[in-house]
């Protein structure tokens, strides 16, 4: 019980971190924490370890606003600008080739079932990776609250929802997304972020599966 709570809380924090990595460009403050090794002991997973190290190293290289601008420009090139090098939208990994594809509507329904919707509905595609991470973060948060309040039963439903979402959505495209980043950039920061994400998704898919087999 305590173990489940502790792990879910940890996962919640990781999802919170991941949504931030892919939604926004890093600030100097974040880079400072990373370069100080804040993620050092996050996980034994090899990809996560390597990713954490790369991000820390890359963060140490950002010394001034000019360096920071370059990193932000790389974020834009990868995820924002014109023909993005790595479109961060699920639809694009499920056979669609435009924004607001089928997956955007599918995850919109998942969010609605939990009483949520995209803040800028119909303006930001619902299937952005950061939004999907945020949804997992939200579900983790609910799970933690349920575990603290009413024990494992209600939490089970939230865990099941996470497992479904991972199987139907996040888990079956995030690894490709990460591979595409690795193919598309020399930036150690984003290569590290891709490895960290890939490793974590692998671990979390396993965790959710095992949690469901109890």
């Amino acid at each position: 019980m305590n173990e489940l709570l502790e792990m879910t809380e940890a996962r919640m924090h990781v999802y919170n971190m991941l949504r931030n990595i892919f939604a926004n460009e890093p600030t100097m403050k974040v880079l400072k924490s990373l370069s100080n090794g804040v993620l050092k002991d996050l996980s034994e997973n090899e990809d996560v370890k390597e990713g954490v190290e790369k991000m820390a190293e890359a963060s140490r290289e950002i010394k001034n606003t000019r360096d920071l601008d370059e990193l932000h420009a790389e974020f834009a090139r990868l995820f924002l600008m014109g023909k993005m090098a790595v479109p961060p939208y699920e639809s694009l990994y499920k056979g669609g080739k435009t924004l607001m594809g089928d997956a955007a509507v599918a995850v919109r329904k998942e969010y609605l079932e939990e009483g949520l919707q995209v803040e800028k509905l119909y303006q930001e595609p619902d299937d952005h990776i950061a939004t999907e991470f945020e949804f997992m973060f939200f579900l983790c948060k609910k799970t933690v609250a349920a575990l603290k309040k009413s024990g494992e039963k209600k939490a089970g439903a939230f865990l099941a929802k996470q497992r479904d979402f991972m199987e139907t959505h996040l888990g079956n495209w995030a690894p490709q997304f990460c591979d595409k980043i690795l193919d598309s950039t020399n930036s150690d920061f984003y290569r590290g972020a891709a490895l960290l994400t890939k490793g974590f998704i692998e671990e979390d898919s396993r965790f959710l599966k095992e949690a469901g087999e109890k």
Partner: protein
Amino acid sequence: MKISRRNFVKLSAATAAAAAFGAQSLSALTDKVNLDLQSGEEQELEDKFSGYDVKYTYDSYCPSECGLEVWTKDGKVEKIYGNYADPYNHGKMCGKGPLGAGLAYSLGRIKYPMMRVGARGEGKFKRVSWDEALDHIATKIVDIKKKHGGESIIVDTGDMTDTPPYYRMGRGMGAPHITEHGSICDTPRRFGPRVFIDGKRWEPDLMRPTLVRQSDGSLKEMGYDDLPLPKYIMYVGWNPFTATRIHYESRGTVTAQIKGCKVIVVDPAMCTTAAQATANGGMWVPILPGTDNHFLAAILRHILEKGYEDKAFIDEYCTGVEEFTSAFKSYWDKTDSSNGMKYFTMEWAADKTTLSKDKIVEIAEIIGTTKPGAICWGMNGVGHRYAGYIASMLGTAINVVMGNFEAPGGTIDCNQVRISKGGNAGGGFFNGREVTRTVNGKPVTGKQKELHMDEMSDWPAGWYDVVGDHPRRILEGIEIKYGPFKGYKYPIKARFEIGGNTVITGSATWKWQEMYAARDPETGEYKLELAVSIDSLLLENALYADVILPAAHYFERYGIADIYPSAPVAVMREPVIKPLGESKTQVEIMNAITKALYEHGDTDIDPNEFWLKYTHDDIFWNEVMEPTPGVKNVGEPLPYPNLPEGYKLLGTPDSLEAGRVTIDDEKKVIHGEPITMDWLRKNQGVAVWPMAWRRYKQAVKTGSGKIEFVWSKLEEENEKIKGGPRPYGFELLEKYTGDVWDEYPTTFFWYEPPYNPANPTYAATTEKYPFQVITARVHQGMTATYANPQQGETPCDSTWWPLNREFEAEVAEWVTVGNDGSEMPKGEIKVVNKRFRRGTYCVATCSMNPDDAKAYGVVTGDVVTIENMLGKTQKNVVLVTHTIRPGVLKLPFGAGGRFSPGVGTTYQQRDYTANVNEFVDPNLLTPIFGFPGYLDIQARIVAVEKPTFATI
């Protein structure tokens, strides 16, 4: 529960990580659901998600702006149809219309404000907030205005009809020169209509259905069987079947042909319209490029010699004909030293155009003896040439003297019947603002508009502005040469560009690049201190911007279309979906920029003229329509017999019809109920007023009220330049042709085309550069490929041909298996990733005659390196074809050599397709309007590459 923890995340590290990244609350998601849904209310959710919402708007995929009916579901565009209520396209669409969603949801969309990080042109940007972007713009503009005044800002509004907010914004901040795409598109083509009647575009009377008053007083929508159609149409360098924005012209031409109309297409290439004409009793006239003037001059001479002109019409409705014909006839006895023949004779024209004399006589006879009919001259053949004014003048004169102007089945000036719009909303009144500048040490007060960089400086008659000369003006600075500020000098320091791409289209690409890269030798800063791009896609121009602002796509913004119908029509644009990301509408951007300026201390900005007034886009667009339709109640049949003839009409069609009007006899204005966005919403997005012919009886807008063969418009300009320096364009005319002008011509004039084999002055160039490069527009190839690569699967003319090298792209295909592997018996269109093998996908193609190909050892699929008379080179893949005359290389413009990654497959083909604008001589600017001689290009082939396995 058995969970392996070995590799899993550690809470302590995760907690620290989360702390480092800050916020713990939701940001992308919210629990404030505004769909009226509660968790678990599945039926309601189902209902909401299964219904379609239908809205009316208009297209902007190309400038045709066809009326559309758009179905949305789940807040997303699902189906797109043509709007039957819009007579312009009458429910029809070309291939681009239904693909509009591909543009709206293109991965290439600019969704957030961006700021440049690298050097200009490098294409490196970072995302910023609207506040940061606006702060940067406002800080720069306020500083620039403080040092150099508002006149040092240019706002170029691109090629849409929904840009009045940007006019208001620019003029409001003190910039007198607000430009638009019209400046770099076919101003020579418009010359004749503009000086003869203050019009713009003459098109054959082909728009059907059209609303016509009947003899019993009723109004009826009349179709092709009800009304006369032209008996001949001569398209000179005009290809309505594939290249033009006049949507009704293709279906109208086909119908006219079925009813016996003879279609003559004068074009060095057998374009689709020419092919269609030859197959239906018409003819293709493969003229030497740039000699349309010679051809039309011989036809006019023939008409006058034979006495075919409509003398009664001329006597009653025209002025200055005698002066014009006498100037024209003064050449008749002169011998052209280049060929020893008398000017404008059939022999002379045959020699110049390389056509047979018999052919020209045959055509002149058709035109001289057939009524009704229309001569229509085009963008490329005439409109984009240094000597294009002359063909435009002659075409206009022939249409008029034959009595075809505004005759049923004749030729219509679409600008004369077009609705008025804009009014105060466009902010024209700001140009009347008093400003004081120090000239030669003394304070001088005048009007904002008297600081205009063109009209008061190098281009006194630059009525459409002179965008093609922007690079030079920015590099060299402006000196005011006429008016109260004469002698005043200022630099251009800021330039906004909205939805345009002048790096590719506004004269020579290299000259624009040179301008953007130029630095002030003292400060080391860019000479043009601020370049702002406002667009929804990342085109080449944006690569040179300091700030990019995300503009709403045409499905996300508002507007009023009034594009070249032959009767007054207003079509509404309104959002059918929400703006993607942080994109904003034109009114929102105008408000945001002016507010930022105000907050940074710009005292020219009055909040009540911007954000406090236009609190909703509708308010702005309603104001735009205050002067609508603004046409006079004149013509046959009289549009509103219940209302006074000759009075200006304002208001909705139904209020005018019902007589719910107030009449101002003093000003001769009839006020119906104002037309508004809400009225349009209730009327399928379209307002149509009755068509009338023979409006020239009371509606010609010239000074004399008649069709002028001596042009008061240019007489006014001569007054302006009196005592001032010779206009810059005259210097260029002398340089390029040897002709000397001391003032603007006010009736018939003549000069020979530069860089042309017909001009003996260029004999040496012709010998060295034996080819003429001409261009053509293929709408699907020019504007579409960056968003919808599937349009590359349809060949067009000889300029868009499947000569690709192997590549991968996403295309729409009909599929019967879903993403999940399930069968879909009915099938649906899906976008799929596809590898295109060599020779299966259309690219910008250089067409070349087989005789030329043989001489150079070229076969279809080879890549030639073309060098122009200035030594600039470009490569292009070749199609060897009989559809082009010898000595001519034809390339589509805008479809090749595209170097912004934002333009999709076109970008992938940049190594073997040419950017034709690299060939343009940036100094070759026409003497009156300063228009680039885009098609006056001589060239040679300097290399031929044979494809190898490595390149294909």
